[in-house]
């Protein structure tokens, strides 16, 4: 049918695509193929495997070593989209500058970012961490306890974020949030932000940090903050966690109030 010569002429295109998007292919391999294979072989979920590794390789009670163990596992063994060490440093810096007393984290996943935030908080501060998935939340709980943070510092709420946010004021007696970190479903960024605005928990100077706004990307979220005019914002450009070639960004918003 189609002659082989014409098919051969497409070879350069194929090569180009492979070379240009090699990072995406590598990511696909590590995040999807390896995961499926390992799931079949071990019978454990990805988060459980990560926890096992951390348990065997980290010092209990030492957040730094737990984070290091996570980083090594994510970059060498398998892939979990934590915030990662590079963007984590930016997050640490923002937390140090801000030194917030009430922090809300949406999307704890397996506790990496929770530990990261809790580590950088001042004395007496409280972190509310929201996780939707039961299994992940169980692991996150273990990781948090392993790192040595008790219930007073970190409170893990197992519920979808859109259910938790309206109840924050009534159930948890919150008046104002100083810092919000978003790393859950990218589609939920925009509605959750609007919900936060509506709940009145955001005060002047509240900082909101959202991870992965460029890849996988949250275009609606960006559009919203651009249009609403409620925020002073910028995007920290970085690469995707545990990968070098994929560009990603972390949005930093400071709530300015309605006026």
């Amino acid at each position, binding site marked *: *049918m*189609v*002659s082989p*010569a*014409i098919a*051969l*002429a*497409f*070879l*350069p*295109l194929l*090569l*180009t695509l492979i*070379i*240009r*998007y090699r990072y*995406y292919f590598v990511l696909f391999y590590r995040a999807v193929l390896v995961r499926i294979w390992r799931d079949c072989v071990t019978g454990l979920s990805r988060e459980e495997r990560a926890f096992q590794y951390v348990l065997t390789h980290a010092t209990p009670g030492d957040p730094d070593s737990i984070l290091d163990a996570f980083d090594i596992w994510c970059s060498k063994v398998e892939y979990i989209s934590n915030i990662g060490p590079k963007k984590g440093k930016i997050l640490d810096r923002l937390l140090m500058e801000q030194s917030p007393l009430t922090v809300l984290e949406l999307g704890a996943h397996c506790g990496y970012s929770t530990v990261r935030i809790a580590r950088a908080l001042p004395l007496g501060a409280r972190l509310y961490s929201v996780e939707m998935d039961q299994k992940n939340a169980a692991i996150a709980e273990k990781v948090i306890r392993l790192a040595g943070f008790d219930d007073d510092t970190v409170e893990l709420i197992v519920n979808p974020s859109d259910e938790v946010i309206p109840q924050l004021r009534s159930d948890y007696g919150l008046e104002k949030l100083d810092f919000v970190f978003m790393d859950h479903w*990218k*589609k939920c960024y925009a509605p959750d932000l609007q919900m936060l605005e509506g709940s009145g928990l955001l005060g002047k100077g509240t900082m909101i940090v959202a991870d992965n*706004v*460029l*890849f*996988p*990307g*949250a*275009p609606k979220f*960006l559009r919203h903050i651009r249009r609403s005019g409620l925020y002073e914002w910028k995007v920290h450009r970085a690469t995707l966690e545990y990968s070098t070639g994929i*560009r990603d960004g972390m949005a930093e918003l400071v709530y300015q109030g309605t006026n």
Partner: protein
Amino acid sequence: MPRSNLITSENDIEIGLDLAGDEEEEEEEVSTLQEEQRRERQRGRRRDGDRERKKRKNDRSRETSTAGEGEEEEEKRERGRRRREKSDRETEGRERNTEGNGRGKSGKTEKTRKNIKNEKTRKMEAEEEEEAGERKTKKKKREERTKEREREEEEEKPKLTEKKKKKKKKKKKKVETSSEQESSEEEENQEEDKEEEKEVRPESLTPEELEKLKEAVDEKKKLIQGLRGKPWPMKKKLLTLRESQEFVEKYEGALGKGKGRKLYAYKVMMTKKWMKFQRDFENFKTACIPWEMKIKEIESHFGSSVASYFLFLRWMYGINMILFGLTFGLVMVPEALMGRPYGSIPRKTVPRAEETSAMDFAVLWDFGGYAQYSVLFYGYYNNQRAIGWLKFRMPLSYFLVGVGTVAYSYMVVIRTMARNANESGVGDDNSFNFSWKMFTSWDYLIGNTETADNKFASITTSFKEAILEEQESRKDDNIHLTRFLRVLANFLVLCCLAGSGYLIYFVVRRSQKFALDGLENHTWWERNEVNMVMSLLGMFCPMLFDVISTLENYHPRVALQWQLGRIFALFLGNLYTFIIALMDEINLKREEEKIVKFNITMWEASLHNATESENSTAATVTIIQPADVPRGPCWETMVGQEFVRLIISDTMTTYITLLIGDFLRAVLVRFLNYCWCWDLEAGFPSYSEFDVSGNVLGLIFNQGMIWMGAFYAPCLPALNVLRLHVSMYLQCWAVMCCNVPQERVFKASGSNNFYMAMLLVILFLSTLPAIYTIVTIPPSFDCGPFSGKKRMFDVIQETLESDFPAWFGKVFSYASNPGLVLPFILLMVLAIYYLQSTSKSYKEANVELKKKLQTQNEENKKKNKRAALKAQMDLEEARKAAIKTPEHQKNNNASVKVPEDGDEQHRGSQRQNNCRNGRNLPPPRHQEQPPPNTRAPVSRSYHYGNQGPPGYLPGHPRHSEPRMCRAPNLQRH
């Protein structure tokens, strides 16, 4: 009052002019309904609109000037009010009248009605003037009366909305101003008014006043001229410019005297009109340049590099138009009009075997069938020496046009290159890298914020890179790795080139096999394999090169040049592989031709024998249809067809890539972004950027193919013109609608000549095979204008022998004697060498001069520094001295001032000082002076100067000054 009068006089003339026009129009409106007149009227309206604006301006000024007038005006105003009311009513009536007339008219008048409403005030004045001129007809009077009644009724209606009221108020105001002027002139004829004014005006202004005004105007003019050089912020400049222009405009008319003034006003008006006309003409000229506005728009959005592509495209279009004109006008049209018609001889007829499918679309699309046997291709032309009643030398014309197109192209390309070289000979030295970057990197034609952001980012990155480069040039640690990577990249590219070359060669050979088998047995894919493969490789390989070039880590500009060079090599390799394969095919055809020639002689002989044996001589020979005559494979037509097909497939690929790669992608990205799990716009597919280098190269190679194939297919320039025309629109649209500005916006000024150089190389390389085939391969025996000759260029010799006198041939043969040609060439080489060496020496001199300038600059700087230091020292000394004797200076000041105040001789110039003194204002200027410093003497001389008005005191604003001073003057006169 005097000044206002002065201004209005100019207006009067204009109003008068207006009136003439207005009345005409109005009459037309009433009397006729014809379209032409309506159009005329509209034109007139527009004209009047301008005047109207001017008038309003003047009205305003009049208003302001009359604001402070005395009681005597009251009377006149009363009279004016009465008149105004009357005129108001009149105009209302008039308007309704015109509207009533217009109701029956077409939509055109509907549009003009807005205009009518806008110019109410103008009409009012018109009415008044009409009245003054006593040109009212009885009919109008009747109308007036009826309308008056109507209007009164209307006024009683309390339903008027606020807006309407406001409008009316405005109207009244305007009428007020205009009627005031009227009232001052009394209810006389216009002519009388003017004369009266002439008498009044000189009285209103003293000669001193006039002189002062003149001076002020001159000063303002000077200011306007020298404004550009002033070290002010732009805002201030603009403000001053506007102010002084207004001033000049306002008072310029006042300067003429008596009769000359009318002329002067006329002159001013004419110069203004002339300037406006010139501006319009310039606009018109720009509008006449094809696609100029489009390109400008693109330039503002995407920067000059993208625009340079479109400029190049336009230039190419122009050249192709000329090529097209040559081939179309001198080859195709004469053949179509005067040559033998289709079907008269074998070469102009579709062979019997192909006749059934000759009109099929598939065949025509491949330029077979009827398309092949038409003026579009070489084979159709007859070798008859002269055709038609003009005795047009067709073969000669064909040959000369073929040569002429190439010669013309060479000439144009080289001339353009030379011109560009002159323009861009300055900025290529690397001695001031950072300051060049600092001061020249902005692209001032960018008008889009996004592009501006990109440009900003690219400038910052270029700075960063330049700094890094500077640093790296000092340490250079990992040079081996970079070198290795570069070598590797080049190796990969070479592999790619070789692979693509081999693929094309393979495909062409295969297609020859198919052709021998007969094309009907193969699928469409196999038949179009060559073109498809060439287009696809040309499209995809540059992408691969681009990816590979990231290995090399070059500066973007260098990387771009490498990229261009590689794509160039690829295209050239592909083209030449194609040509080599074509040569093989030509040789095959010629083999075939020999056999066919032999067969034909056999066939003719047999035919001859048959006729002889049958003994019926001429009848049977004529019976043979031209379609049945066996004929050779015309290799020239084959070559032409190949090129035409190549061009067509290339064009199609370009357009399809544009539609799929740009448009479809943009649509998908835009609309899938609402429901996709990652950000398509900022992330992976994104919108495409405009690929300048690829597009330019595509254009250049396309042109190369045209030059190569135009000799064998005269339709090629026409096709190319069509293609360029379409691609101009398509690409303009595609760029504006689906591309985003490049991330690295770079200026294109330097790359223009690069394109030209490439074009020249391609021109040379593409004429090479064409000339080779023309010179070495004998033309086919039974098709084309040169059939029957040994070589194609024999046609010139033939013409020389038969069409020119014998002596001319002799001269030509002497001139073409190698003994004469060789010395001539030698002389040319020597001349070139000489010119080149002189230009080199000039260049060196230039460099020397540059160096000299630089050193001189440095010296100057040093000198200036020294001078500045010295001046500073002096200043300080002077300051010290001044502090020591402040009181002494004060006394000095006072002593100077006192006698001058009493001086009567300087009355004219010192009037303002006097005036202030007369009003018992204390003139303690010298006491208010800032603590004495070095500038004290300067401020003292201020009092002597009679040019500018002296400084105004805080409590007494500027505008009250002149009038207070003028009052005694007026009395004196």
